[in-house]
């Protein structure tokens, strides 16, 4: 266990340093949410006037949606890093050491979560500047971060797992592009649940992205403070929508375990000369 923690820590430092040294990737992944917030926030701002929408400001409604959407896309790309390491020979070099296999995955997952945290804060700031307000206060923001982080962790683990199995960038890109937008639209990121067709609403109930968006929005609004659920889980303070957090954790753990297992049985591919 001690080795696992140390290895995870050291590898996490490596990932963080790399990100700090190639900031362009972070910049690029921030431009998209800022565009979504300003462009779509403005384009669709009158949709809140539809009866039954449930909110008075679209930018207020949209901001948590965009935070979660960015968490999703940002972490989905995590697998690209592992493919790069596979191609560069770095993975082989690491696997020839006694490094904990679980640490190799966990460090990447933690890195995704931390990155998403910073991106989330920046998006919240932009949302605030555009007029969104967060009555849920500090705890609300904290819950948002937790939800975004959990979603990002799970997807990052899944992405790394797919990357290890397929070892090809093209496959990962195809999967992300195929599932990314549908997952976003099958949630309340952009549209109120009350105004969705019932079939979409039903699918959204099973969508981890939606769990995160719903929970995030409620948390930021300070609604649904369910103290009753709070004591059941690790996060002891008053969080919004504990049920959503619960769901996120449940989908996260098997994904980390699966990816570690894949790494354990990873066999060096046929040398291509």
């Amino acid at each position: 266990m001690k080795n696992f923690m140390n290895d995870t820590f050291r590898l996490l430092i490596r990932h963080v340093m790399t990100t700090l040294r190639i900031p362009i990737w972070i910049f690029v992944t921030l431009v998209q949410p800022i565009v979504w917030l300003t462009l779509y926030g403005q384009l669709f701002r009158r949709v809140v006037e539809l009866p039954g929408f449930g909110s008075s400001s679209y930018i207020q409604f949209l901001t948590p949606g965009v935070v979660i959407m960015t968490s999703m896309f940002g972490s989905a790309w995590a697998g690209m890093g592992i493919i790069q390491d596979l191609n560069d020979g770095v993975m082989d070099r690491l696997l020839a050491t006694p490094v904990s296999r679980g640490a190799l995955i966990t460090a990447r997952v933690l890195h995704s979560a931390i990155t998403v945290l910073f991106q989330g804060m920046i998006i919240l700031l932009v949302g605030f500047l555009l007029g969104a307000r967060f009555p849920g206060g500090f705890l609300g923001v904290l819950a948002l971060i937790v939800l975004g982080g959990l979603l990002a962790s799970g997807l990052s683990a899944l992405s790394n797992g797919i990357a290890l199995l397929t070892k090809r960038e093209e496959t990962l890109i195809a999967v992300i592009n195929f599932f990314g937008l549908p997952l976003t639209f099958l949630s309340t990121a952009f549209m109120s649940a009350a105004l969705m067709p019932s079939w979409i609403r039903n699918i959204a109930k099973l969508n981890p992205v939606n769990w995160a968006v719903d929970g995030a929005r409620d948390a930021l609004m300070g609604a649904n403070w369910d103290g009753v659920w709070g004591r059941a889980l690790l996060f002891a303070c008053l969080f919004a929508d504990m049920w959503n957090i619960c769901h996120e954790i449940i989908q996260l753990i098997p994904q980390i375990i699966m990816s570690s297992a894949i790494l354990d049985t990873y066999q060096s591919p046929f040398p291509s000369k």
Partner: protein
Amino acid sequence: MEAIVAEHLKKTYRNGVQAVKGVSFYVKQGEIFGLLGPNGAGKSTTVRILATLTKPDSGKALVAGHDVVLEPQRVRSKIGYVAQSSGVDKYATGRENLMLQGHLQRVPKSQLKHRVNELLEWVGLSEAADRLVQTYSGGMKRRLDIAMGLVHNPSVLFLDEPTTGLDPETRSALWQDLLRLKREQNISVLLTTHYLDEADYLCDRLAIVDHGVVVAEGSPSDLKAGIRGDRVTLEVDGHVDEANERLKLLPQVIDVIVTDDALVARVENGATAIPAIITALEGSGISVRSVALSRPSLDDVYLYHAGHRFIAEGSLEDVA
């Protein structure tokens, strides 16, 4: 106890390629052992099996006293692995790379900093240590690779084609470094290469690998001595098969091997055999374009055991 023992290793990849078809050899403590063979012979796969990166389909291997399949973690703590493609992290400095490797190899924290400085000094990267590896030349990256393989004082070092792609000067420097390493520490080195001169110069013993099997094993001098006689290489104008037959009839000729553009005859004494050979061939109406004489080299060893000429960098031309 031997540093490495490989017994009947076999490995077929999922795409159907039979990379290793029964490789057996051993490496003594403190020696530099070479795996020599052309591209695709199965050398890299063998090394990957020994470095616990991939599992053999059958066979057994003991590295530093531990079974690679049953106790991989133990093996990993005692080996250094330097891959053919550089495994360094480009976006970190040389020092950071070594420090991380040291941590992952469980080098005690109290010793690590000193060890890293020591290694940087040894490979001549002290000045460049705090620059990003991205800025290093190919030779510098390779030296860092080797330093990383040595950070935890392994008892066995695997070097997969360490000088491929390096300029002659860097190659030469690396050879000297390896010999120095052998002299100063009792480390056993398994080196794969397709350079005959490298195998000849560096290795105490070597195994020639071809198409997934070991075709010859021994020290370079023993292997060369095993090939009796001189080599006479002839280029003729057409009629190659005829020439082959004609040469075989000569008493001085021990055997003849045909490559796609020449005939290589082994003879007891080249100087006296050449006149007889030329007379015999010309007498049969076969015109001899050129003739060359040489003492046995590893190329001859290879030719003899694997039946085709060893062409160092290109693909191998297979002649029955």
